[in-house]
């Protein structure tokens, strides 16, 4: 009997071209589903009603009629239900899952009342914001971070009355009287929003309530998601924006039949806004940008093939997307940085990573906000007054001064040396010279004439003599009294260059210590300006130029940056330096104003520094690190808090049942999708509802699958230190895929059976999955909500039976 097969055509999809022409986008899911959710509800509530109806035999024959779906509305009874049922049918579950989600995330939020895991970083940065101190750190979570998250955390802390005084020293520190709930609550709030987002996304994609409920329940009852949302971390914020972007992208796709309507514009720009948020939090947000980008390209390609659209319309489509998905996020992203720099205007621990110009923006830095002495202005203007006669000031570089030299590369360091020698086999075994990003006493050098010894300059009877463009000088390291030296040995990392060392004793070295100092774009004989002059140091004997290659030295060089002497004469910032500090007791201490960097320069520089910091996070040798292949199989968790039996322990681990279900589903999905696609390609005659199912499977499922791949695969190529929590964005996609796939599978099975059997299989199948998830959550909930007592490896522990893998340590 053909009727059973067609009975379970849950969401009647009118045409392939415009899948849901009846849908008014503006009204949200409630209104959208008026006609068909009603029908589905009918079916879910009472299949028999439909069965007994007169339509029983004819659905398949009616297929050609479907594009004009309206005229053949179902019988009056379902239609009368529709306005009542639909909003209830969609909104009630939504409200329910939202409630559950909030309840699960906010339950025991204040426990444990001490700093957990990375809270130490992010909380600290929140404090920095409140105190408006500039910072930069190369530690894992900080190197990669952008501004907005910290601002958000800072803002949340500020609003909730946190005063920014808690030091966030190390995990395990007690918060005492400090108000941390505000910040945690903020993260938990965002984390809770993920569930309704996922629910709406799946509903929109599959048009199936059960699929949406399944996806939502997976996320609600996943211990990993709960744990990750409960602390002051970046991940809830990132995932919030990520899911927001996906949801608005899906909504926008649904509005494709009504382009340029208000709702279309709304969702499109909302996508852009969310994208800006996502990359603003972590660079991992770039993956979702990629997902949206690919989706947009696909959209445009489809539009291009639609010959009914004129080129002008196509242009409008293109421009709209460029505006909403490129320009708008870019503007917002830039704005975040503007706020970031505006808020952080005090000098802090991160100064040394940035150029002298950058530092001059920061209050409290010795380069900040100083006035320009008149005589220098005059000289700079190059008027007829002889340059031999300017008033002495520390604005000009003088012999005998103690100086620091900063490389002009982005995130270039200070010229540095220390007592350690180059190891055996790396050039000559002389003292190391490196570039170092932090301010340090070992960055100090004394500038001397090449042919005079130490005493001259310090003797007060001698008058100050200034260094001029083209002079031959010697740079003596202040701490170790060795001269900056180079010779024809290979540099340690850049083999094409020469090695730079510290040589000599108490300033007495050899002819390889002589350097010619030159200023870019200047004539001979002119003085050299502190900060403003771009200096090049040419080695006299070999003709090479002092530069920093930007490569990190191995352990023996304390992972500082390599300094070399390059024989290739190129005008790159790598080979240019400026004098930053200039200390000379005989000169009046006037600082110089550097040309303040423009905002784009500041933006570019801070990005370079962040990228560099991020790529510098290599795992150490013999260190056990988390591998990407561990993640989907839930191989190993992360210890958030507590080590010993008496501690309050929180362990970040996904609900194993959920995760393994997700893992199996990916295989299942691939299998089903392959079957569907091959069947279609072979031209197998499918019934209408199978076509619809495979449509959902291939299009909606394909997008989600793509999202999963984009958020997972790139980690295999990353050289940096990876952590378990990096998988959670991918896990969101995986959960949504699980919802869609199982729903499709059950529908498919149901479609094969008789009507009542099919309905039962479908309902009970979904129910069984949900119960399984809830029960596993009941088993594993102590992972998130805290455990006290013996470790699970101890057979007496209540959790002992749950340690299904030996690698779990709770």
């Amino acid at each position: 009997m053909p009727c059973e097969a067609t009975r379970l055509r849950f969401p009647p999809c009118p045409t392939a071209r415009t899948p849901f022409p009846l849908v008014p986008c503006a009204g949200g899911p409630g209104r959208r589903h008026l006609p068909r959710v009603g029908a589905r509800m009918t079916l879910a509530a009472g299949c028999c009603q439909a069965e007994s109806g007169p339509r029983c035999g004819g659905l398949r024959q009616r297929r050609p009629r479907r594009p004009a779906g309206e005229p053949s509305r179902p019988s009056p009874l379902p239609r009368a239900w529709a306005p009542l049922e639909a909003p209830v049918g969609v909104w009630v579950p939504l409200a329910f899952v939202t409630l559950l989600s909030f309840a699960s995330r906010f339950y025991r939020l204040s426990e444990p009342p001490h700093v957990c895991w990375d809270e130490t970083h992010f909380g600290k940065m929140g404090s920095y914001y409140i105190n408006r101190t500039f910072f930069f750190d190369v530690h894992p979570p900080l190197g990669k971070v952008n501004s907005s998250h910290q601002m958000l955390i800072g803002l949340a802390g500020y609003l909730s009355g946190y005063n920014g005084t808690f030091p966030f020293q190390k995990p395990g520190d007690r918060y005492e009287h400090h108000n941390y709930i505000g910040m945690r609550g903020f993260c938990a709030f965002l984390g809770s929003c993920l569930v309704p987002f996922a629910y709406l996304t799946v509903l929109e994609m599959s048009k199936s309530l059960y699929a949406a409920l399944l996806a939502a329940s997976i996320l609600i009852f996943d211990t990993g998601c709960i744990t990750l949302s409960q602390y002051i971390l970046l991940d809830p914020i990132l995932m919030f924006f990520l899911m927001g972007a996906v949801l608005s992208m899906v909504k926008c796709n649904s509005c494709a039949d009504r382009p340029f309507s208000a709702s279309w514009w709304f969702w499109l720009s909302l996508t852009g806004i969310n994208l800006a948020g996502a990359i603003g939090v972590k660079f991992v947000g770039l993956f979702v940008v990629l997902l949206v980008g690919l989706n947009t390209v696909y959209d445009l390609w489809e539009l291009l093939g639609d010959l009914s659209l004129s080129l002008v319309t196509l242009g409008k489509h293109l421009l709209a997307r460029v505006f909403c998905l490129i320009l708008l996020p870019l503007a917002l992203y830039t704005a975040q940085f503007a706020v970031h720099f505006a808020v952080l205007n005090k000098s802090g621990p991160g100064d040394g990573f940035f150029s002298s110009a950058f530092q001059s923006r920061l209050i409290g830095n010795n380069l900040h906000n100083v006035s320009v002495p008149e005589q220098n202005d005059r000289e700079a203007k190059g008027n007829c007054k002889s340059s031999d006669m300017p008033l002495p000031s520390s604005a000009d570089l003088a012999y005998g001064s103690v100086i620091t030299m900063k490389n002009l590369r982005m995130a270039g360091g200070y010229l540095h040396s220390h007592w350690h020698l180059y190891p055996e086999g790396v050039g000559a075994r002389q003292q190391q010279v490196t570039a170092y990003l932090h301010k340090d006493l070992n960055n100090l050098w004394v500038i001397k004439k090449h042919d005079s010894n130490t005493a001259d300059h310090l003797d007060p009877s001698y008058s100050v003599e200034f260094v001029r463009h083209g002079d031959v000088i010697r740079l003596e390291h202040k701490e170790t009294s060795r001269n900056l030296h180079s010779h024809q040995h290979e540099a340690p990392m850049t083999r094409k260059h020469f090695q730079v060392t510290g040589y000599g004793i108490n300033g007495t070295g050899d002819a390889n210590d002589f350097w010619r100092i030159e200023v870019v774009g200047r004539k001979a004989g002119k003085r050299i300006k502190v900060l403003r002059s771009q200096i090049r140091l040419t080695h006299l004997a070999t003709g090479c130029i002092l530069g920093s290659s930007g490569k990190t030295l191995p352990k023996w060089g304390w992972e500082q940056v390599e300094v070399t002497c390059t024989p290739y004469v190129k005008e790159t910032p790598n080979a240019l330096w400026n004098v930053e500090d200039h200390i000379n007791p005989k000169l009046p201490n006037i600082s110089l104003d550097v040309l303040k960097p423009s905002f784009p320069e500041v933006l570019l520089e801070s990005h370079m520094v962040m990228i560099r910091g991020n790529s510098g996070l290599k795992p150490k040798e013999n260190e056990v690190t988390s591998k990407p292949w561990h993640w989907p199989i839930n191989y190993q968790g992360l210890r958030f808090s507590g080590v010993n039996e008496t501690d309050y322990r929180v362990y970040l681990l996904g609900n194993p049942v959920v995760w393994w279900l997700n893992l199996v589903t990916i295989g299942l999905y691939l299998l089903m999708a392959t079957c569907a696609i091959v069947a279609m390609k072979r031209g197998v005659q499918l019934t209408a509802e199978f076509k619809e199912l495979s449509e959902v499977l291939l299009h909606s499922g394909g997008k989600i699958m793509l999202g999963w791949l984009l958020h997972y695969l790139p980690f295999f190529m990353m050289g940096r230190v990876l952590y378990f929590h990096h998988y959670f964005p991918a896990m969101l996609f995986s959960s949504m895929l699980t919802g869609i796939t199982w729903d499709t599978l059950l529908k498919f099975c149901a479609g094969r059976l008789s009507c009542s059997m099919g309905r039962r299989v479908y309902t009970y199948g979904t129910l069984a999955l949900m119960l399984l998830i809830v029960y596993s959550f009941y088993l594993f909930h102590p992972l998130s909500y805290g455990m006290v007592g013996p470790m699970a490896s101890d057979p007496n522990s209540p959790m002992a039976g749950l340690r299904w893998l030996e690698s779990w340590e709770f």
Partner: protein
Amino acid sequence: MLGFLKQPVVVTAEINVNLVALTVMGLVNRLWALSYPRAVVFDEVYYGQFVSLYMKRIFFVDDSGPPFGHMLLAFGGYLGGFDGNFLWNRIGAEYNMNVPIWSLRLLPALTGALCVPLAYQILVELHFSHCAAFGAALLILFENSLITQSRLMLLESVLIFFILLAILSYLKFYNLQKCSPFTAGWWFWLLLTGVACSCAVGVKYMGLFTYMLLLAIAGVHSWHLIGDQTLSNVSVLCHLLARGLALVVVPVAMYLFFFYVHLTLLYRSGPHDQIMTSAFQASLEGGLARITHGQPLEVAYGSQITLRNVLGKPMPCWLHSHKSTYPIRYENGRGSSHQQQVTCYPFKDVNNWWIVKDPGMQQLVVSNPPRPVRHGHIVQLVHGITTRYLNTHDVAAPLSPHSQEISCYIDYNISMPAQNLWRVEIVNRELDTDVWKTILSEVRFVHVNTSAVLKLSGASLPEWGYRQLEIIGEKLSKGYHQSMLWNVEEHRYGKSQEQKEREVELHSPTQADISKNLSFMARFTELQWKILTLKNEDTEHKYSSSPLDWITMDTNIAYWFHPISGAQIHLIGNVLTWASANVATLVYVCLFLWYLLRRRRKICDIPEDAWRLWVSAGGFCVGGWAVNYLPFFMMEKTLFLYHYLPALTFQILLIPVVLQHLTDHLCRSQLPKNAFSALMVAWFSSIYLVYRTFSPLTYGEPTLSAAELRALRWKDSWDILIRKH
């Protein structure tokens, strides 16, 4: 029967003179004065070592790639009767008379020469005109960089040959597909595709890129096949299975076969033994096998053992202790237990010997019959020479303050009790038996009191620790890392009760009798894993370059320099060809996008057939270029200009494709066509001129004067060696 009596036997030979001429020209051009210079040129110094080792049958590990390429070079040496006696130590060293340099260089040169006719054939199979095909072959013929690379004992030309062969045979196969599937020719070309692919991968891992490309193209074609509803399901399945067999199963089998030959040929122990596990070493003749030959298999209470760390990074080492103690205070002010140091020592030493002791008994000898140690047993480890117990306690390790210090316990009579019980956990124990076995078992030592795990931290101690490697007790042991695993390497049953006798016994070599034969698969897996994970500390080379420099050829490599005459060989390409290839790629991509967008709007600029040709040519040429070039941007290893040559070959093949397309479809009238042809002639002549100009740097002769050399420095970034007088 006997039909030849009635009708004469007629052999009709069809000789493509083009092809023959091209092959001859290629051979002349590549083989001319092949044994000049009689000196080690550039990477010959690297490949030469392996050839020598092959000749001597000594085992080695080369992390640069699989063994097939080395084997081919060694085959050349074998044919030339090379005995392997040459010290490959520096570029420029003169070869002795016993090095058959001509035959060593012959194979790369032959494959390089055969690339010329292959290029011709490929374009013909892509359905382009013979004129275009001839042009492509000429461009390959006059490409200086390809000539340089194929005239020396290097692997790139072999790799390029196999890549082109794979492409050609796939194209032949695909063209046969339409008319005569499942014929002998069809099978031949299909199988040849798989074989050529596996050879390419076997020569260098770079071949994987082209293999992937071919798989992708074959995938697309199969997809069309699935959509072809005139074929029955069964025949579609047969088609798919045939492809799966030829393009997946055959290459994998071939790849395994290379390793099989490799491991069969090299059976003697050699310089790279240390990298491999003890079990692997024991399977080689000489080396460790001589020591471990005849050891008792099962470790028993009273056994004297040396313990090797399984990880072997940063270097292979053995658990070690010596008389010296930890300094009371470290440089950074932290204190230590001041007990006897325990380290990991990368050399064989009598201090590497430990004795397994039963905590419940005093004796240090093996009882009769021996009581074997099993998984989960608690033991004490006694250092053989000093008879102190391996101990750990809640004191921070010298360089890893988060872990526990490991020491040999000295009783200072202070409130620090000995904690010297260790639980033996055999990680790779078999199901049926859990006995601790020599060499085979990988063991974790878990401290009973603190559950810390004995681990190699990878840091090396400062002066006071004699720069040996640090051993720590890892408290929060996450998972199983190889740095926590140990295996027994040397082993004997202890017999001496007295310390003095025992010392003598420890100094004497081990003996007894067991033999181990690892299966081929076990040896293959280990060697493959080592090849993939072995990291050379080699950071940067003088002539290394970044992929961006390659497109414009901003860099060159000086291969060889005669110290007296100043003759030199450089890897420098034909500038004009490189530039034209770049232009062709750009034109192709632009035109392709233009056509694609217009076709989507149902505007067809070119006929359907021409479009299909255009797409398939682009798929192979631009695709080949992209897959062989773009991945280098993500690689962190040291890169050289010669890595670009496979990509360049594909790019060169694209030039005639674009040119023919332009003449056919964009020059509509006769006049521009004539002008175009004239332009072509001029262009080809200039390519030949550039080839002639740079040929002294390609062939290394004639010697050029300083002024001439300076004139050849067309780009400032080129590093041409000019002698200062």
